[in-house]
């Protein structure tokens, strides 16, 4: 190295001479080499000397490095090869920070080769400027003790990348015990740090979760010491109030320091399984309940190292369970009351039973004494209705309480529950019995002395009182319902349906003093509805006075009319009797599909204001009545229709019977008539042949002949009936017709002393018809009449003119044959026109006369009727259309 310095000195000399020659133009080059001027000499000498000094210096440094290398390699075993074997980062520097060794891992990590960094300060190369300065200063004054064994340092490597390296330092001292070499072995922890920061984040979250979970968590070690508590656990069991042992263990084992084998943690340590138990802790007078569950933490060898205890607060859950139990019991009591209310017992009986049921509520610390007061007849007064277990002495003076008089009265006045706190006597709950906001009474429950007010109890009793209210209202109105019921029974409507409708729809019956339904067409009161204060009927006001109100309401098409009638009554006072007690009149019009049918009228003792409920209730009754009105109308129409249908059916049957008879008769006639002809021929033959025989034989022959002819008559009539002759119409004067007929009968009639009178119209009227057939009809009817009356009887034959619409659509001729005979029985009257029906079997009637007559008249587009009643005689009417005269 010295030689190199010398050489460089010579070269410098040489080049300086050359420079002087050419640049400065001074003398020749050779001359300048060897004979420099004094200035140049000094310049050249100093330059050469400098180079030589540099050579010396570098030589010395090289020697030193060799010495150091030798020392590190052989004495301390820190050869590059050795350090490369380490696998982790390793480098050696002297106490100034010069790098002496730099293993392959460092090369790989930093991107610098050992030769590039050798002899350079590591702090200058790798540390941030600020940190580098600090490091240089520290190294300058560092002692052995000052060296940090382990530290994490950020290294800047090639490309500006930053790495976090965790270094472990080993200091090699010189003989003076000063640091000589420092060996740093490190690990790149950049990724680890990132993961660790992430982990810390997770950990924080987890911790937050564990703390906010609402469950106390503690970790108990094998000696039952708590090694971890979450926030909830600390809150429930503050350090000052608990030992360092498991809280549950302390509670179960009574603070034993030894394993108890009973608490969940101890059990878990014993069998490695999960266990749970309930513990109660009394804190500041209140009782808290916890559910403790232990879970084992098992290591790799399967040994239980820790037990995790979770603690859940069951205080609220227990309270809720208790509340649910109370609600259930309350509901059970209410259900019992409702069930009981359906029994057919009196209101008083029900209330007694109800009080027994209420007092049997297990959690209600009531005495077995209670009273029910109901609002009495006097306004704003409570009257003792029933009590339970009160002695006569106790109940004395409680019969009547005015509203606001005491706490009981106050409960009634304010409609709010009251609690008496009298120290020396029983305590009471006074519960107003409220129905739709109206106080019906007060329930008084006796409690123990010193009983503390409990809101839950009050709420329960209020609910019971409300239930009672419904039942009391219903029971006390049952009587009124029955009245309504009976009214609707009278109306014909299903009462049960209506009552149910009233209860569900109205909710409350109108407080009517008297209420009536009056039909517009009939001046009768159909419905007597409610009478709360008066026995109605006898004290009904004169309805006519108020008809005008209702008629006006109908005219105005308004449904309800309300009038103050006190003035009107005042004027009429005295004449109306008890009516003057009424102050308000209400009229509700009743409409049906066919129009207004009538009105409901209500009379009230007080100034009545119609509420919506009342309107609804009135409307319901009005509807029920209108339905009934419709029903009555429909029934009437149906009855008429039914009667007509029945009649039509009978006629149809009759027609069918006649038709069948006709078909039958036609075929039969021939078959009967021939044999009849033979019989008749035979009889007449015998009659002739036995003309001279004895009279008995002749009488017998005569009888046989008569019967044969009678049979023949029946068959002839039957054939006429079956096949009526064609009508040969002509203009007929009924007078002539009757006179002609009477001329045929008069002879017979005169024999039996019967009077026949004719009552004819003066003027002549005419009909169109078959004279012979009509004469046959008249003959039948007059003969019937004559045969019906006894000797000396009277038969009237009347002709009169019937106006259009009376019997027929057009004007008609009415011929009446009236007898004063015994009349026809009702059952016979219905069968009168049936073929073969006769009441004259003894008089040889065939039973076909009237049926044939009816057919003949009907063929003439007329009507034949017979009206009769026993002992009243009979009227036979022939009605035939008139023709113009």
């Amino acid at each position, binding site marked *: 190295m010295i030689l190199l310095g010398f050489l460089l000195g010579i070269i410098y000399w040489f080049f300086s001479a050359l420079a002087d020659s050419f640049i400065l133009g001074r003398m020749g080059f050779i001359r300048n080499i060897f004979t420099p001027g004094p200035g140049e000499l000094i310049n050249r000498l100093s330059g050469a000397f400098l180079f030589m000094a540099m050579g010396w210096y570098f030589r010395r440094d090289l020697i030193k490095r060799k010495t150091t290398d030798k020392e590190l390699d052989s004495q301390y075993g820190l050869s590059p090869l050795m350090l490369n074997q380490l696998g982790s980062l390793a480098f050696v520097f002297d106490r100034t920070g010069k790098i002496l060794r730099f293993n392959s891992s460092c090369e790989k990590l930093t991107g610098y080769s050992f030769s590039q960094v050798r002899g350079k300060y590591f702090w200058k190369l790798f540390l941030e400027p600020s940190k580098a300065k600090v490091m240089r200063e520290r190294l300058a004054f560092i002692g052995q003790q000052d060296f940090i064994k382990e530290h994490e340092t950020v290294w800047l490597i090639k490309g500006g990348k930053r790495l976090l390296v965790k270094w472990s330092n080993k200091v090699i001292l010189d003989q003076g015990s000063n640091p000589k070499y420092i060996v740093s072995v490190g690990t790149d922890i950049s990724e680890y740090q990132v993961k660790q920061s992430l982990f810390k984040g997770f950990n924080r979250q987890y911790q937050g979760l564990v703390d906010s979970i609402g469950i106390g968590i503690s970790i108990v070690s094998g000696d039952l010491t708590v090694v971890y508590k979450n926030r909830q656990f600390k809150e429930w069991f503050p350090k000052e109030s608990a030992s360092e042992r498991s809280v549950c263990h302390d509670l179960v084992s009574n603070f034993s320091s030894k394993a108890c084998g009973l608490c969940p943690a101890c059990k878990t340590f014993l069998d490695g399984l999960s266990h749970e138990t309930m513990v109660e802790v009394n804190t500041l007078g209140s009782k808290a309940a916890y559910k403790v569950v232990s879970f084992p933490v098992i290591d790799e060898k399967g040994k239980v190292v820790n037990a995790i205890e979770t603690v859940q607060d069951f205080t609220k859950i227990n309270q809720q369970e208790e509340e649910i139990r109370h609600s259930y019991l309350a509901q059970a009591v209410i259900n019992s009351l409702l069930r009981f209310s359906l029994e057919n017992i009196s209101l008083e009986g029900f209330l007694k039973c109800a009080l027994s049921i209420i007092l049997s509520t297990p959690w209600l610390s009531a005495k077995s004494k209670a009273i029910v007061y109901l609002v009495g007849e006097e306004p704003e007064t409570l009257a003792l209705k029933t009590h339970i277990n009160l002695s006569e002495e106790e109940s004395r003076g409680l019969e009547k309480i005015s509203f606001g008089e005491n706490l009981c009265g106050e409960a009634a006045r304010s409609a709010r529950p009251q609690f008496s706190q009298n120290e020396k006597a029983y305590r009471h709950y006074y519960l107003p019995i409220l129905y739709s906001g109206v106080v019906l009474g007060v329930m008084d429950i006796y409690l123990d002395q010193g009983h503390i007010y409990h809101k839950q109890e009050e709420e329960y009793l209020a609910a019971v009182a409300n239930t009672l209210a419904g039942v009391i209202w219903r029971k006390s109105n049952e009587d009124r319902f029955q009245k309504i019921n009976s009214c609707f029974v009278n109306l014909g409507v299903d009462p049960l349906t209506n009552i149910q409708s009233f209860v569900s729809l109205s909710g409350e019956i109108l407080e009517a003093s008297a209420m009536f339904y009056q039909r517009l067409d009939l001046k009768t009161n159909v419905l007597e509805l409610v009478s709360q204060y008066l026995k109605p009927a006898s004290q009904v006001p004169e309805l006519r006075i108020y008809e005008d109100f209702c008629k006006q309401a109908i005219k105005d098409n308004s449904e309800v009319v309300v009038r103050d009638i006190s003035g009107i009554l005042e004027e009429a006072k005295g004449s109306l009797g008890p009516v003057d007690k009424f102050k308000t009149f209400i009229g509700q019009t009743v409409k049906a599909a066919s129009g207004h049918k009538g009105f409901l009228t209500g009379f009230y003792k007080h100034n009545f204001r119609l509420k919506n409920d009342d309107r609804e209730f009135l409307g319901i009754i009005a509807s029920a009545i209108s339905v009934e009105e419709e029903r009555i109308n429909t029934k009437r129409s149906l009855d008429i229709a039914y009667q007509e249908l029945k009649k039509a059916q009978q006629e149809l049957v009759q027609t069918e019977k006649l038709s069948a008879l006709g078909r039958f008769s036609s075929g039969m006639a*021939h078959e009967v008539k*021939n044999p009849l*002809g033979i019989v*008749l*021929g035979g009889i*007449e*033959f015998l009659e*002739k*042949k036995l003309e001279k025989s004895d009279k008995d034989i002749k009488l017998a022959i005569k009888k046989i002949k008569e019967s044969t*002819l009678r049979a023949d008559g029946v068959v002839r009539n039957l054939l006429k009936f079956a096949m009526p002759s064609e009508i040969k119409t002509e203009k007929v004067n009924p007078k002539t017709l009757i006179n002609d007929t009477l001329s045929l009968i008069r002879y017979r009639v005169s024999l039996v002393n019967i009077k026949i009178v004719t009552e004819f119209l003066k003027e002549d009227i005419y009909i169109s018809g078959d004279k012979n057939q009509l004469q046959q009809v008249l003959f039948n009817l007059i003969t019937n009449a004559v045969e019906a009356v006894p000797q000396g009887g009277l038969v009237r034959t009347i002709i009169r003119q019937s106006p259009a619409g009376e019997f027929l659509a057009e004007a008609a001729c009415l011929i009446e044959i009236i007898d004063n005979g015994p009349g026809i029985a009702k059952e016979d009257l219905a069968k009168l026109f049936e073929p073969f029906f006769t009441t004259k079997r003894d008089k040889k009637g065939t039973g076909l006369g009237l049926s044939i007559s009816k057919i003949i008249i009907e063929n003439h587009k007329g009507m034949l009727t017979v009206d009769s009643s026993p002992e009243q005689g009979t009227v036979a009417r022939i009605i035939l259309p008139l023709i113009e005269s």
Partner: protein
Amino acid sequence: MKKILIIDDEEDLAFFVKANLELAGDYQVSTATSGKEGIKLAARFRPDIILLDIMMPAMDGYETLHKLKSEEKTLAIPVIMLTAKADEDSKMKAATLYNEDYLVKPVQIDVLNAKIQEVLTRRNS
């Protein structure tokens, strides 16, 4: 003595009519039980009057009447129709066809005799 022919499928009926007529008046009565037989008999027997039943099997009274009125030998013989049929149709048919008389069975011998006399008198006049 007047000759009467009874044409009726009811033999018993014809028998009693014959017997009663013979008892009632001076009649010679023959009977036939069918229309066909009656026509033959009428031609041969030449009755003064024929009593003819309408409702007969095979050839009914109307057809028999028609044939009697078609034959020259029997054309002028008056006929009294006898039938169980009492309807207007039957009467009209008999009347309008040949203007003959009509009686409804069963007929009393007096009525029949009177009718025969009436018809014979009318014929003779």
